[in-house]
């Protein structure tokens, strides 16, 4: 289920696939991200998040399918795409011998739509010392610098690849603040991949769970939380009924306790379960995003 609008999507992935020899890193990935929305891509390590982002940005060639950002295909017009998309990587490899002001000047010279006021304002807010060399910057300052560079050319799309990994709590908050400010001011589309479900909850409108290169779910966060529930049932016979609930995501039996997580939950789902033979008391439990995420992943692992 995607959030569709009539306007052109800011990000469009169609059957995107990437294979490295025998390994399939990204498997037939299709999704659309509406302009102006914030999309959080979550998944365990090795799920294919970074690979997907690399293909979107044109730094990796897809095996099959295509990836478009702002309607631009990176294989066809990579430079145009990079002019209009801001990117913050997970690991920072800017030239370590350059000073902050030199990095800024270098980037400024490359972008057509550079806004020096925005750049200045953000550098001041982050308290980045312009005369420091990149190798002297802490991880937190490096990430903030990356954000400044990504945002100063006024991109319509901002792509962040695990930007807050390894940051101390204060740096995280400052970075988050910086990202929120730019969303408030410019209303651009944001795609970010992360492990941190707290960040997803705060920042994202819609969320996509990636596992083994496959998209398990792509939904508005509130809808997802509202329609995914865990049911705790008592198994009077100690046996699971033959008819399992629809949209089953994950289940676990421990003694007489049966936990089952379902999507598209309605009261009917619970009632039908209560009506099953061998099922006693059924309790409906709301899930937070973290538990929901874990259940999706565990469910996938059980299948494969």
């Amino acid at each position, binding site marked *: 289920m995607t959030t569709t609008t009539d306007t052109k999507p800011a990000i469009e992935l169609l059957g995107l696939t990437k294979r490295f020899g025998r390994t399939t890193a990204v498997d037939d990935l299709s999704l659309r991200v509406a302009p102006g929305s914030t999309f959080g891509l979550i998944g365990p390590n090795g799920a294919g998040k970074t690979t997907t982002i690399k293909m979107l940005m044109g730094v990796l060639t897809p095996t099959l399918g295509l990836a478009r950002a702002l309607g631009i295909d990176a294989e066809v017009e990579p430079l145009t795409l990079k002019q209009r998309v801001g990117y913050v990587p997970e690991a920072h490899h800017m030239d370590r011998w350059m000073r902050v002001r030199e990095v800024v000047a270098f980037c400024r010279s490359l972008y057509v739509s550079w806004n020096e006021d925005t750049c200045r304002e953000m550098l001041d807010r982050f308290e980045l010392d312009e005369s420091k060399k990149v190798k002297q910057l802490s991880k937190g300052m490096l990430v903030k610098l990356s954000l400044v560079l990504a945002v100063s050319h006024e991109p319509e799309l901002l792509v962040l690849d695990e930007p807050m990994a390894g940051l101390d709590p204060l740096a995280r908050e400052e970075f988050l603040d910086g990202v*929120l400010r730019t969303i*408030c001011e410019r209303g651009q589309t944001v795609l970010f991949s992360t492990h941190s479900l707290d960040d997803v909850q705060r920042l994202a409108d819609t969320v996509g769970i990636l596992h083994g290169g496959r998209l398990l779910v792509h939904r508005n966060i509130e809808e997802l939380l509202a329609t995914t529930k865990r049911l705790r049932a008592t198994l009077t016979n100690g046996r699971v009924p033959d008819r399992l609930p629809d949209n089953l995501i994950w289940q676990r039996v421990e003694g007489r306790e049966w936990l089952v997580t379902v999507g598209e939950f309605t009261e009917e789902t619970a009632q039908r379960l209560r009506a099953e033979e061998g099922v006693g008391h059924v309790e409906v439990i709301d899930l*937070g995003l973290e538990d929901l995420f874990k259940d999706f992943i565990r469910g996938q692992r059980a299948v494969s």
Partner: protein
Amino acid sequence: MNIDPRSHVPIYLQIAAGIREAVAAGIYRPGETLPSLRAMALDAQVNPNTVQKAYDALAREGLIYARRGKGLFVADQGTASAQTRAHETVRRAFDQGVRTGRAAGMQADEVRDIFEASLGNSAETGKHA
């Protein structure tokens, strides 16, 4: 405004609840403006779209209303309506507590004792409406 992203209550509802409490407590008075979308988003450290959702929900409730170009204002009945909501929330919490007690086999007196103790505790911490 402190948001708990781990809670299974959607963030926009948490924000709405936070604002409602603030109105009930008189922090925002009828006729006054609420913080802008941007200010609230930065304060709560959440996406402005989420704050918008919260504001929309409160507007539907009648707690706040929008005046073009001027911002969002607390409705005149705002404080009263927020307090009614607060009563509702407390009543539901009590109902839940009683149900839990009954399910565990407690008698009415036991439940009442627990309630009185709880009331006593909050009086000591001096929380005023």
